[in-house]
């Protein structure tokens, strides 16, 4: 009883803040959808929107653990490289070593996990600052991708392999279904479990968290390992979607992922944020990019708008909170 009475005002205050942040994002999202559907009649169609989910699933998968990592006060810059390394291992073990495809997929997932475990060990136990640890492993894992594949791509995957990245479950793209399940799990873990509260506590004040008995090292290690595993899963879906594994896959993807998380209202200093915010951030970025492409803006130029939206979102958020 005492615990709830103490926690309640704190929680409701935080919930209010989050509600406004997410409310603002939701309004922005609706405005973008209305604006873009006026600009292009190809935008607001079920087909186009479902197709978009195929393109953003990999980014979204990585954004889920990234949200928790950033809330805990860390960052993982190596996700794009982990994805490439895992994808290369998939292609390599299937095409060059000749392993059966399911085994190759397992190796792909384990490669991602290994990458994440190494990050986790460095950050949680050796206590290398996350930014610098994952900057180093960004280069190392990317180097592994090029070294192992010798920059050759693997292709010619069997028809049934395409199910995961190009197939459908009912009316929905396969990966969209996987993504929705994982979003729900991530949301529940973060908002409804003790582990989720530990993540917030560590991000708010790591020393205090340690003194209150939270296994800080274990939580951090788990987060980075999960990020690696998710990169392995994203690599699998990515390979199935584009039907080839290349060492330069997902270069710079970490920036998209972090932009989505920050746009979703997660503080880069840690301590606050939510999965719902991240999902809204992802939707805004994806729809904006797609809508601009449909209205004739050239591919890479859409990055400009996304950068502007990112800075403006944080700027407005800062101004609102200061008041």
């Amino acid at each position, binding site marked *: 009883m005492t615990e709830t009475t103490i926690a309640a005002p704190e929680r409701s205050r935080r919930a209010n803040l989050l509600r406004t942040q997410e409310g603002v994002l939701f309004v922005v999202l609706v405005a973008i959808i209305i604006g873009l559907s006026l600009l292009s009649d190809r935008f607001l169609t079920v087909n186009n929107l479902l197709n978009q989910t195929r393109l953003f699933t990999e980014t979204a998968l990585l954004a889920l653990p990234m949200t928790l990592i950033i809330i805990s006060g860390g960052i993982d810059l190596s996700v794009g490289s982990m994805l490439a390394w895992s994808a290369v291992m998939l292609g390599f073990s299937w095409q060059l070593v000749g392993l059966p495809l399911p085994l190759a997929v397992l190796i792909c997932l384990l490669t991602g996990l290994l990458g994440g475990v190494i990050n986790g060990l460095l950050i949680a136990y050796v206590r290398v600052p996350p930014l610098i640890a994952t900057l180093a492993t960004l280069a190392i894992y990317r180097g592994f991708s090029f070294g192992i594949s010798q920059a050759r791509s693997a292709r010619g995957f069997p028809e049934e392999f395409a199910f995961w990245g190009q197939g459908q479950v009912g009316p929905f793209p396969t990966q969209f279904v996987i993504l929705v399940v994982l979003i729900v799990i991530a949301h529940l873990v973060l908002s409804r479990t003790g582990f989720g509260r530990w993540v917030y506590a560590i991000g708010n004040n790591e020393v205090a968290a340690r003194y209150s008995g939270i296994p800080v090292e274990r939580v951090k290690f788990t987060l980075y390992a999960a990020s690696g595993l998710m990169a392995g899963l994203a690599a699998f879906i990515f390979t199935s979607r584009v039907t080839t594994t290349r060492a330069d896959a997902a270069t710079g993807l970490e920036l998209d992922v972090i932009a989505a998380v920050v746009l979703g209202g997660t503080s880069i200093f840690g301590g606050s944020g939510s999965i719902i915010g991240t999902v809204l951030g992802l939707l805004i970025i994806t729809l904006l990019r797609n809508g601009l492409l449909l209205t004739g803006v050239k591919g890479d*130029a859409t990055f400009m708008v996304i950068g502007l939206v990112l800075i403006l979102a944080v700027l407005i958020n800062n101004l609102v909170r200061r008041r």
Partner: protein
Amino acid sequence: MATQAGRLTQAHRQRGLFAQQEAVIAAAILVMTFVVSLANPDFFSATNLLDIAVNTAYIAVAAAGMTMVIVSGNIDISVGSMLGVCATIAGELARNGTPIPIAFLAAVAAGGLIGAINGALVAYARIPAIVVTLGMLSILRGGLILVTQGRWIESLPEEFFFSQRSTLGVPNPIWVMIAVTILVGLFMKYHRFGRAIYAVGGNAEAARLAGIDPRRVYMFVFVMNGLLVGLAAVLYASRFTAIQSNAGQGFELAVISGAVVGGVSILGGTGTVIGALLGSLLISLIGTASIFLKVSPFWLQAVQGGLILLTVLVDVVRRRRRA
């Protein structure tokens, strides 16, 4: 300032193997040059060694600016896009008949302007540097492609190629690199404002109480960084016959790695320009050495990433022993 002095005396007291990161890196450079030259005598030729230095120059010039930014407790990941924009400005102006010195100055000024925007957003709008520069990275990269439409800049006038010429037998980029390192190094070590960068990076609140305005320091380091990236862009643009529209992609990693390998702590408060120069040099040296040792170029990035990790681990161990 007190902690700074404390750290210095402790560093002096401990004259062990790893007492000074700069000394370690310098030793590594010498040992590596020696070993590689034994394996392949062609490595130890004036042409090759000068070539390595020229390859390093534009990275080291930007790394001097990055040192100031990181020492102040910030980071700038937009330098790659900035380099691309500044190089394109210099090239476009020169091709349209602008006098070359003015084209070069415009590139440097553009860098300063972008740096000022970054600085203002960090210092006065209080947006974390990583978010600001992540957004700026996207804005500049997108804007550049929007303007150039992906075309390369070619057929530049002969006088444009500043970096291909030599003065007193030494290639121009090397002179610029040396001058920048000395000037910024002296400034940071002896000038009142240079010391303020360390103070703010060590403990912003303490520095503020001691009468230093952290906001002015942040503004200053970002503007200086922008100017130096503009200068680096001039060195870069005037080296090869064409300027690509994706110039500078991944440059931020090279610059940050150079600084970090050279002992600039990502946590702020410690590091020197000479260290950043040596770090950049070591990374370039490894690149060239691996060609001479006939290491597959595809493994290069893994080796360089491993080096970053190694130096960071040494730094972590050293801190722990001191603590």
